[in-house]
């Protein structure tokens, strides 16, 4: 009886030893050497796997960064839109580089064809996807470039940052936006653009993408850009270009002076988060005031101050 136990123990131990040797050999031969920095970089990333950076997930992004670094290529084009500069600084530290800070972006919906501005002419009762409606026809208001309002952008957003306002029927972006660019890709009409967030969330942009001539554009929508070029003339920084009957404000060049906004005859240029304009009379009065006095004002009136400085 003892013989059986001893025999079993010896044979099993022998198999164990042989297997261990084989496994060790195989493990040495087929060893995958992975850069330990990949793990460190991945650790720094937000793990949202949103794909906003252009890679399939955070792991792929980390791999790509480490690969670029080991090939001594620049990592300027890499940006994690979710984590922003904070995360990118950490990533750069992990791979031993310094990061230049980029301005944060936000998605901007460039259409103001709401129900009042661009009244419905057609009843659409097909499936509620913009992609389909765009293939089929020009839209309920007749504008061939305007928002279809069927919410492909809302579906594409992973961050709950864009939703359709039931009153206007147009998508609106809230502060949750991380500028991953999913909605930009989802929109079949290229209405959504990623623009710099701007100081204090202040932005000026042409809220229209219609490339028709003035007459036909105005026929469908009262707030369409008619390509008159008034804004181009008034802009002191050459930030506005006119192409295909459509004005475009280059966010890099724009200094947010707001001169173009009142110039636009259809109100297609929008200013966001600016303090209300002063009436002309008030403005003159203020200009006469010595600027020192303005600076002495309390924090509550600070926005006014800002405007003064900018103007």
């Amino acid at each position, binding site marked *: 009886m003892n013989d059986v136990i001893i025999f079993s123990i010896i044979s099993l131990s022998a198999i164990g030893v042989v297997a261990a040797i084989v496994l060790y050999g195989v493990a040495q031969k087929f060893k995958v050497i992975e850069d330990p920095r990949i793990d460190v970089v991945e650790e720094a990333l937000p793990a949202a796997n949103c794909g906003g950076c252009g890679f399939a997930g955070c792991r792929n992004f980390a791999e790509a960064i480490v690969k670029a670094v080991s090939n001594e290529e620049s990592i300027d084009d890499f940006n994690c839109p979710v984590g922003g500069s904070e995360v990118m600084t950490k990533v750069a530290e992990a791979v031993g580089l310094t990061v230049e800070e980029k301005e944060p972006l936000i998605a901007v919906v460039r259409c103001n064809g709401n129900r009042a501005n661009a009244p419905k002419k057609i009843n659409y009762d097909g499936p509620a996807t913009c*992609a389909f409606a765009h*293939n089929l*026809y*020009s839209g309920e208001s007749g504008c*061939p470039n305007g928002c279809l309002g069927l919410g492909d952008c809302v579906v594409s957003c992973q961050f709950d940052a864009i939703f359709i306002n039931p009153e206007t029927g147009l998508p609106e972006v809230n502060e949750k936006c991380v500028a991953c660019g999913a909605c930009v890709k989802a929109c079949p009409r290229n209405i959504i653009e990623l623009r710099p967030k701007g100081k204090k969330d202040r932005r000026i942009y042409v809220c229209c993408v219609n490339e028709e001539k003035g007459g036909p554009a105005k026929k469908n929508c009262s707030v369409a850009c008619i390509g008159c070029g008034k804004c181009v003339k008034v802009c002191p920084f050459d930030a506005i270009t006119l192409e295909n009957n459509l004005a475009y404000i280059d966010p890099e060049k724009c200094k947010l002076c707001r001169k173009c906004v009142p110039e636009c005859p259809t109100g297609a240029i929008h200013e966001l988060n600016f303090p209300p304009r002063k009436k002309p009379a008030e403005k003159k009065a203020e200009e006469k005031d010595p600027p020192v006095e303005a600076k002495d004002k309390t924090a509550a009136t600070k926005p006014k101050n800002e405007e003064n400085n900018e103007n």
Partner: protein
Amino acid sequence: MTTLKTFKRGGVHPAENKISANQPIVVLDPPKQAFIPLNQNLGAPAIPLIKKGDEVKVGQLIAKGEAFISSNVHSSVSGKVLKIDAVIDTSGYKKMAVVINVEGDEWEPSIDRSETIKRDFSFTQKEIIDKIKEMGIVGLGGATFPSHVKLMIPDGKKPEVLLINGVECEPYLTSDHQLMMSNGEEALIGTSILMKGLGVKKAYIGIENNKPDAISYLKELAEGFKGIKVVPLKVKYPQGGEKQLIKAVTGREVPSGKLPIEVGAVVNNVGTAFAVYQAIQKNKPLVERVVTVTGKSVAKPSNFLARIGTPISILIDNAGGVPEDTGKIISGGPMMGKALLSLETPVVKGTSGILIMNKQETHRVEMLPCIRCGRCVSVCPMGLEPILLSQLSRLQMWEDVEKQKVMDCIECGSCQYTCPSGRPLLDYIRVGKNKVGQIIRNRGKK
């Protein structure tokens, strides 16, 4: 009685509603202003040859199709060119068109406008193809594929049979029916010209047996033509589809993703055959076509011979105006037609009919969950699974959509017609087909 031929797989039989069937063709006067789009064919648009202020005559070449798949455009009216500008088309998007202010009705002197029927022709194969190209003939069944391209057979393929499509399987439409009744002999001469152009000895004219008068009339006429035979077909939608017609008449099945020439067949519409006759024998380009204006509430459902470029509103006015309970106005038939956005859209080479549907007919039923009955699968004439394709398209799984052969879909709408849950199957399949088509084209570029 022998059983009538038809295609085997799938198909539906919607209510025929051929209200305008016995209305003879009414010739419409030229409109006051004509809008002639530059892209009236499948493929590339034509390049305009005229400029603002030019005087044009009926039949004058105004735009030339330079690309391989493109076709010439001729003026359908005489008068002065007002402008070449973007004009709204059936989809609401703007396309380039020539706008002509009509003055009088002066035709190019080279066009033979007499009523006499010329039977004999002595053109060679190449001359026929060149003439068809010059006269801007496109497939008049609705797809508007340039006819001369169809006649140019790729190397290594041999056409054996010409099929003439007189099926008109779409409910409501009667334009081909009336054309066969009034211009049957010319259509048959056109058929023999096409046979010569292809170099085939046999031609079959497929007609559904809901048009018994057309079948017997053409049968009688066909006795005088060598090699042409009329084939009565059982009424079933979508028999007018190219692949379905080949299957019904010859029993051959076109393989997935291939053209009909693969099985030695070439299909042309009966309207195209008539246009070919006019082009070859009368030197007349494609400047007018038969358009049905119909609908349950329409006062005078009619078949009009309208100039290309006539605004659709004029056709509807001649049929008694837009009825009060109109829900939708459709260009084409109820199954495959497209709702119009504006009545100012012009008649183009592909306009076979204008259908005015009332509010009750156009009401979309509420979409209910799929009950897995499989009716859409059983009616699909291409043997696809519409419910699967539509779900995959909805979920944007484009690779799977492609694997499930979405590109084979002929968009006949049988699946959506038959769905008891009122699901918009074809709508989603179209999204998928469009997207997959884009993906395939992009792949080709790389």
